[in-house]
């Protein structure tokens, strides 16, 4: 099977007061339908790696291929279009737009894609149903709990049926019960709808649910366990 993502000897160096090597010569493949996690202690380079895979940042060296295509040569607009069509994101801090309702937050991705209103509404409602929030669709984020906000973020990440959902420490701001519910939800979406998930986390709960864990330390690949 052709990998969905091929990470080929990727290095990321931040040049601040001193050079910081966040990711170093890292290689790995992610396959379609996977439910994988990148694990490692704080500062190990998990989030940087996820940002590089999500094209939110560019590698200093190395290449990342999506379905065999290089993305390093794409312009800002092409990268934006690529993320819009192919990727979904879930962040540690939920990152919902506070002035939009749950429905509108999820719908916004489809608006950016130019999906017609009727189709947009149907897909948005479906995504909210999948995460069990269709009854709270009209609520703004400040009227939702942390777990509910993260469910909205999950709905937003899957509403356009992306190739890959990247979740950066999705349970870090949630209590254990809510974290477990969220992981159940994402595992369910992975199994029922075949959506590929890649997490970064050091939460044992997340790692225990992942079908494959890629360990990273000091920016380098340590282990790749299924």
């Amino acid at each position: 099977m052709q990998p969905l993502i091929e990470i080929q000897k990727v290095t990321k160096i931040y040049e601040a007061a001193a050079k910081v090597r966040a990711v170093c010569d890292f290689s790995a493949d992610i396959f379609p339908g996977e439910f994988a996690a990148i694990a490692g202690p704080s500062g190990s380079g998990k989030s940087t790696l996820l940002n590089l895979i999500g094209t939110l940042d560019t590698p200093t060296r190395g290449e990342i291929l999506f379905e065999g295509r290089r993305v390093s040569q794409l312009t800002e607009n092409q990268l934006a279009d690529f993320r819009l069509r192919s990727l979904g994101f879930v962040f540690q801090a939920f990152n919902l737009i506070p002035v939009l309702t749950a429905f509108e937050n999820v719908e916004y991705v489809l608006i950016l894609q130019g999906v017609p209103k009727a189709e947009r509404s149907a897909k948005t409602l479906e995504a909210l149903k999948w995460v069990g929030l269709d009854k709270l669709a009209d609520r703004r984020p400040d009227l939702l709990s942390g777990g509910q906000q993260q469910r909205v973020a999950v709905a937003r990440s899957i509403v356009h049926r992306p190739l890959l959902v990247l979740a950066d420490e999705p349970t870090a701001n949630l209590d254990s019960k809510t974290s477990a519910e969220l992981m159940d939800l994402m595992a369910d979406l992975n199994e029922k709808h075949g959506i590929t998930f890649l997490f970064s986390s050091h939460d044992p709960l997340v790692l225990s649910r992942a079908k494959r864990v890629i360990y990273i330390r000091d920016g380098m690949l340590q282990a790749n366990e299924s």
Partner: protein
Amino acid sequence: MAAFWKLVWRNVLRHRRRSLLTCASIGLGLAAVMFGQSLMKSIQRQMILKSTGVMFGHLQIQVPGARDPKVPDKLLGNSRRYLDLLAKDARVEAASTRLLFTGLVYSAAASRGLLICGVEPEQEKRLSIIPNYLTQGRYLGESPRDIFIGDKLADELDTYVGEKLVVLAQSKSGELNSELFRVAGLFHSGSLSFDAQIAYVPISMAQKLRGAEGQVSYVVVRLTDVDLSLEAAQEWTERLKDFGVRVLSYEDIALEIVGVQKFEDAIMIVALIIIFSIVGLGIWNTISMSFFERIREFGLLRAIGARPALVFKLLVAESALMGLLGIVSGLILGGWLIAYFGRYGLDLTLKEAMSYFIPFEAVIYLHPVWRLHLWAVFGSFTVCILASLGPALRGARLAVAKALQHI
């Protein structure tokens, strides 16, 4: 597009007090500019109407080469043919001739140097507003020896309506001529220059005194609209180019008035720049604060697939929306101020300062100057857009990963 503007609208409402203050500052700035423009132009309008009304007219036909176009030293002959030609122009409301020269006036008690203005009484009533300032007696016209003077001059000469005055003037050939007049009436214009230093007599007697039979200083024209004067002057210059005369608009003659206008316009531009700078700083501050508070949000928008231009457009549109709201409130407030002071007037005690030169009303009634107000609206909106460009460009150039980590 609807979703974009919905987001813009909600972002503007996110910090209602801040947005309200920003809109209010734009609105107040615009209203202040509109008020200032209206006030300046209303003052200027009165200056033009009064100066053209009392002396200059809207157009004058003179002999070229006069040292001072206000009191030409070269005289014009055969003025009737110009009046006949002017009578065919639909824009001409009235036309007449005048003869101006300096002289001395004697009463039984005193004498004064003054400007003698020979006029055609019937035509002059349609040309000049001086007859409207009559306070005692009557205007010229019943007798060729009538003289019409200001009340201040009458005081200085200790003379009254019906009393005799002698006017002494030097003829063109250098001889001293004198004529006896009887005071027909007194006027009070409120301007020292007119009330104490000018005497009006029938033009036939003025020509006799000056020894200039059939000659005049100029032909003076009143148009249906003062704003036509420049265009009409150019047209008549072309039509009369073979007559050896020049046609001047009031702007060519009343250089002081034009100078004052230019000075006031320059002050208005400076005030405009100051007001727009303050408005611009206000909106820049609001949009900058909004930008810094929402860096993570912009990172999110970029992460989920928004192009950099969307972030740019979002910030510019928020500024534009606040600008539009401010402009609407400014138009309402400015329009109301102009309407209010247009109805009840505004006493700026300018009369004392202005009335030495020309009669001037104490109360200024404001009029809207929509051409200038539209420029102010355009300026306000442009300032709002320009002030947002910096933060908007920064938003568009955000590094997505870094923006998402912003606290």
